């Protein structure tokens, strides 16, 4: 009876909702069941933004924001909150304001004349979607519709006394621009770049080779640390059961070590010279880094006082602000912030598991708040042979705009481990980051930013404070309705006020304009599955940490059911009764697969097999990776190498040609084949048990399959054509994600180590893996739920 009433309800939708009541629509719809999902379409650009004609005042191609900077989950905005509610689609923004600009990318245009036109009421920056009125004397803000004066310097340059063409201005032609900010935007002179290393020198750290690798890497990267104006400052603190400071400004060029063993009330042994100008103290610093490993190589100290060390590090750099890089190989066990081994296998897989994913001590959260206040960012490099409490230690980066790197079971004796860490640290040090930043997202009247996800501190209802903005970190923001929209287009503007590593105060402005629609069909047709997945991943992590992992998984599944259900009832002909197949619009067709990928991912998967460290780290990546990295992290790329076409792995018109992505199903594996699977953090080479000796010879330089060593490997560089091509493909996968992560190569042999093999197979998400469903079972389950919807 109820069902019937529901059906009747859907028949009577108002005229505004287009085709729904007729049942049939002209959305390109695909049936999901019975066919393999087209994984190639994961790389498709988001649905087109169909703005009304003449929305932008210039016809520049860059008038609207590029999806790599900012994308919306819906490229057409519902006019009313009821429509959004009815569609069940998540509404939010995925922002990567400080993405890296590699060769071939357009650099961000810079407005150098410090004329910043902003709306006097809502403080929106002038952008390509405003209107000039009254003969160009005034401009009408596109957020709040206030009239503002156009600055006279838009048309007349008083310096050269020449008229200028306002249409040439970058802020009217580009959606992504940077302004050089005048002094009104500063509370103090722009800070210099500061790197303070806090290095663990206790026995486990020396033993696993972390100290030696770190010292060498820092030494070799000194030239790469941005230092354009010679203002960059560097300091080193080492810590075991006491805290060691180094005076880097000695006359003799010999670093002077100062030991503080008072952990209750750590103090700075001297007021200056612990933090030194990189250029001035360079010889002393090199001297210290060269000797660092020898100084501690015979240490027996097993204590580590990270908490007090971080407190004094904070004290040291808080007058300037900057970055604390913390390299930690043991669980801190002395002084404030001492941690216990909390891992309890009995809790894993139960509803209590989330307690292990929450911070075990409030010390680090409190410290993070203090750091955020003083523009100090903490980055964590964690190395653990045992439990490292990633959950607690990653609190610091989470609230200070930092980043966490985790190297489980790190031993520098394995050259692959050392290489990965050295590469990532060197990349990280050479990044041109932004400092002392605040970010605000403004939207047209009626919309409100309601929840924020990512690494930052929320300072007011719409202001995020980021002591550092690392490159390529992504932030998700959920948007909600305050009022219905009566305008044809809405606009989202993100402003990131920051100090660049060149020591300039700058404002980066990203403007995204989107059309408003009244039709549910438009909404579905313009939904961006990649952005939706990114937003849902952040929300699921949030839920998993604060409540239960079960809740997080249920929320993901329910969202998928809702979307499929709404699509079925309102947008397909078979709106009533059970359907033989699930249908979804073409642009959303991979959402069920990506949902399954999230459910099966280490970050959210059920079961008692996943140590909480690994889970915490995966959760950290879920909420910070930019889309181009997160999507392969959830749905790895899978290629068959043994039978790839001739041109793959050679340099073609668009760089290195890649093989075709395959479905993540073990049906694709062949006993005699070689496959590559890549999830943006690791690269797996799967070698079948019947692989021909020639293939082993060509690729690994060994006579047969048995002699190939499984596990972490560095691919040899050989003369053979096949080896060169595979090496090129591996190299390309390492660089195409545009982040500082350096995926390691694992060779997985079909008849090799079962644990490795299982790990590899767990990435094949279309397969059944007890107790998780296969893709087809999952669709069947969704269908049952949708039919009773």
């Amino acid at each position: 009876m109820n069902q019937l009433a529901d059906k009747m309800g859907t028949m009577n939708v108002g005229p505004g909702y287009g085709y729904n009541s007729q049942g049939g629509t002209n959305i390109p719809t695909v049936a999901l069941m019975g066919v393999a999902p087209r994984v190639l379409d994961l790389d498709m650009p988001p649905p087109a933004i169909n703005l009304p004609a003449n929305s932008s005042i210039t016809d520049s191609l860059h008038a609207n924001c590029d999806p790599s900077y900012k994308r919306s989950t819906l490229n057409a905005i519902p006019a009313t909150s009821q429509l959004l509610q009815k569609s069940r689609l998540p509404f939010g923004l995925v922002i990567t304001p400080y993405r890296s600009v590699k060769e071939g990318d357009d650099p961000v245009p810079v407005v150098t004349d410090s004329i910043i036109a902003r709306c006097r009421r809502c403080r929106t920056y002038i952008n390509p979607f405003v209107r000039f009125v009254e003969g160009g004397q005034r401009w009408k803000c596109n957020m709040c519709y206030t009239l503002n004066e156009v600055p006279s310097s838009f048309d007349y340059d008083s310096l050269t006394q020449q008229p200028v063409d306002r249409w040439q201005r970058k802020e009217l032609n580009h959606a992504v621009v940077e302004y050089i900010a005048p002094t009104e935007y500063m509370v103090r002179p722009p800070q210099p770049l500061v790197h303070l290393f806090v290095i663990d020198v206790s026995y486990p750290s020396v033993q696993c080779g972390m100290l030696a690798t770190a010292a060498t890497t820092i030494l070799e990267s000194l030239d790469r640390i941005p230092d354009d104006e010679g203002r960059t400052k560097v300091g080193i603190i080492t810590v075991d059961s006491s805290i060691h400071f180094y005076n880097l400004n000695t006359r003799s060029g010999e670093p002077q070590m100062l030991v503080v063993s008072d952990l209750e009330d750590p103090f700075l042994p001297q007021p200056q010279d612990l933090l030194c100008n990189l250029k001035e103290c360079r010889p002393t610093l090199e001297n210290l880094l060269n000797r660092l490993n020898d100084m501690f190589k015979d240490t027996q100290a097993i204590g580590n006082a990270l908490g007090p060390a971080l407190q004094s590090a904070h004290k040291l750099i808080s007058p300037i602000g900057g970055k604390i890089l913390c390299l930690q190989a043991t669980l801190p066990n002395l002084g404030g912030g001492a941690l216990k081994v909390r891992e309890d296998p009995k809790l894993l897989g139960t509803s209590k598991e989330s307690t292990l994913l929450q911070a075990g001590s409030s010390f680090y959260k409190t410290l993070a708040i203090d750091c955020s206040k003083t523009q100090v960012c903490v980055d964590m490099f964690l190395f653990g042979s045992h439990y490292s409490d990633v959950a607690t230690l990653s609190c610091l980066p989470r609230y200070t705009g930092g980043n966490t790197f985790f190297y489980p079971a790190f031993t520098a004796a394995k050259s692959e481990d050392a290489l990965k860490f050295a590469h990532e640290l060197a990349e990280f040090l050479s990044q041109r980051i932004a400092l002392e930043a605040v970010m605000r997202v403004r939207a047209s009247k009626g919309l409100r930013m309601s929840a924020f996800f990512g690494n930052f501190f929320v300072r007011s209802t719409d202001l995020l404070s980021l002591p550092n903005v690392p490159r390529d970190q992504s932030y998700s923001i959920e948007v909600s309705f305050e009022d219905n929209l009566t305008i044809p287009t809405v606009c989202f503007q993100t402003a990131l006020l920051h100090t660049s590593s060149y020591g300039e105060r700058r404002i980066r402005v990203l403007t995204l304009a989107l059309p408003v629609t009244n039709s549910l069909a438009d909404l579905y047709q313009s939904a961006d599955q990649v952005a939706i997945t990114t937003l849902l991943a952040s929300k699921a992590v949030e839920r998993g940490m604060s409540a239960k992992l079960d809740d997080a998984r249920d929320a993901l599944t329910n969202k998928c059911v809702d979307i499929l259900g709404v699509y079925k009832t309102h947008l397909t002909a078979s709106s009533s009764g059970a359907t033989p197949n699930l249908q979804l619009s073409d642009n959303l067709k991979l959402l069920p697969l990506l949902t399954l990928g999230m459910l099966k991912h280490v970050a959210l998967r059920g079961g008692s097999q996943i140590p909480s460290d690994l889970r915490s780290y995966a959760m950290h990546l879920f909420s910070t990776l930019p889309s181009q990295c997160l999507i392969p992290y959830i749905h790895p790329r899978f290629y068959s190498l043994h039978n790839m076409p001739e041109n793959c792995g050679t340099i073609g018109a668009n760089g290195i040609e890649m093989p075709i992505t395959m479905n993540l199903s073990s049906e694709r594996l062949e006993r005699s084949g070689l496959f590559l699977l890549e999830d943006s953090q690791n690269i797996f080479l799967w070698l079948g048990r019947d692989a021909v000796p020639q293939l082993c010879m060509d690729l690994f330089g060994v006579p047969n399959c048995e002699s190939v060593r499984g596990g972490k490997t560095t691919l040899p560089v050989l003369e053979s054509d096949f080896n060169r091509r595979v090496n090129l493909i591996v190299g390309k996968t390492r660089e195409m994600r545009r982040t500082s992560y350096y995926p390691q190569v694992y060779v997985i042999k079909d008849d090799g180590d079962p644990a490795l093999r299982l790990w590899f197979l767990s990435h094949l998400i279309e397969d059944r893996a007890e107790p998780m469903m296969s893709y087809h079972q999952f669709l069947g389950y969704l269908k049952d739920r949708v039919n009773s919807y």
Partner: protein
Amino acid sequence: MSAEAMVFLFGVIVGACLLFVKVFFVILISDLEVDYINPIELCNKLNQFVLPEMCVHAFMTSIFLLGGQWIATAWNLPLVAYNANKIMNNKHMFDATEIFRTLGQHKKECFIKLGFYLLSFFYYLYRMILALVNDS
């Protein structure tokens, strides 16, 4: 003055104090919403009062219990239990990093407690006057 009147006089004074504390909470929380105060300051200010408020309330309840005022005790016990539960789960403090996510909850709780203290205040006042009238 009888013991009963004394107990309720004490209740009236404490009730008024609690009422003021809650009004202060509500004002600060609405300040946060309109961005007059930043979350770190807000939490520092509010957290000073959280434990004292709970202790004073528990102390008042125990005075009612000792004074043999069963209705007043029963009226206050649920709140004592609720507060104790919060302290045990370590959820009683305001967390600056989570404040915007939990603002709705905090606000709701503040208003409910405000109403509760207001009702209590008038009840104690009424009982105090009643006791004083009976005395004379």
